[in-house]
């Protein structure tokens, strides 16, 4: 197979999705008729359509064949948390660090009252500050923590980024 059109333009042309003027389309018809690769591609497409079209209903039962109900491109892989989400996670980590520090100051951390203000004010408005999306794999905890610390540093430098 050497003709570059056989797997691209000719497929679109065969299914009525040729993009171009009527003259261009007619020229491509002449090309297909005289090109062995494109003729073979057209033969295969027609043969398969002839056999598969009556069975399309059976193929349609495959759930995986149904297009997803979205309008834009579907990302190929699971997305990482957004910057906003990661910042909230960073805030939660900071809150945890503050709690840990406070707990270390008291003799009996189990009965010591928790400081209400610093945690509640920042954490409550978050939609889900701590819980990362369940499908995001955390394969390298150290790397994740490093990233959170970097984000905390950025937050300390410029709190307005929230």
């Amino acid at each position, binding site marked *: 197979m050497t003709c570059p059109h056989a797997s691209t333009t000719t497929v679109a042309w065969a299914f009525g999705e040729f993009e171009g003027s009527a003259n261009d389309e007619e020229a491509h018809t002449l090309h297909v008729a005289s090109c062995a690769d494109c003729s073979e591609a057209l033969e295969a*497409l027609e043969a398969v359509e002839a056999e*598969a079209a009556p069975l399309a209903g059976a193929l349609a039962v495959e759930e995986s064949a149904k297009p997803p109900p979205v309008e834009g491109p579907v990302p190929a892989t699971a997305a990482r948390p957004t910057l906003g989400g990661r910042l909230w996670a960073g805030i939660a980590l900071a809150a945890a660090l503050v709690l840990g520090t406070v707990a270390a100051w008291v003799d009996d951390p189990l009965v010591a009252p928790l400081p209400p203000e610093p945690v509640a004010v920042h954490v409550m408005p978050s939609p889900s500050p701590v819980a990362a999306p369940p499908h995001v794999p955390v394969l390298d905890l150290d790397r994740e923590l490093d990233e959170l610390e970097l984000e905390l540093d950025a937050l300390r430098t410029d709190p307005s980024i929230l």
Partner: protein
Amino acid sequence: MDRLDPADNLTERIVPLQGELLGFMRRRRPHEAEELAQEVWLRVSSATTPSEPRAFRAYVFTVARRLLIDRHRRSRTIGSLVALDGGRAAEVASSGSDPHGQAVAAEVLAVVERCLGSMKADVAQVFRWRATTDLSFKDIAARQGCSLNTALGRQHQAARRIARALDEAGHSRRKP
């Protein structure tokens, strides 16, 4: 390319191919063969065609195959069958009235499904979407997050492999 001289008599060049074209159409769509053959001649007569006999014949069957693809797609049975639990071939087999046709349909479906199952997921997905929905290749490319040419290439690849598998299984109607 050697083109038709306006003075040429198109009818003289069509006549030797009429029987062959009609037979070609009858093997594929017997109930519409004459109508489809007429449509081919109509398209051929309104186009600039090659004058050399072999090139003219190739042109005629190129137009015919393209017309057939369009007709196959318009007549496909989208969603005519309900969900199955591992018995799709049996379901197809029970959907017609001709026992032989039912058996052939079941065999063809098994070949197509087996072939799709052996392909890369993205390639099989393009074929399934084209077969079972009205998505254009542009839509499919957008949904798969790939270029239009990649989606077209995947359809090409899937069709070639399925056509070969059908050939090997003795279900080919490829040649004129």
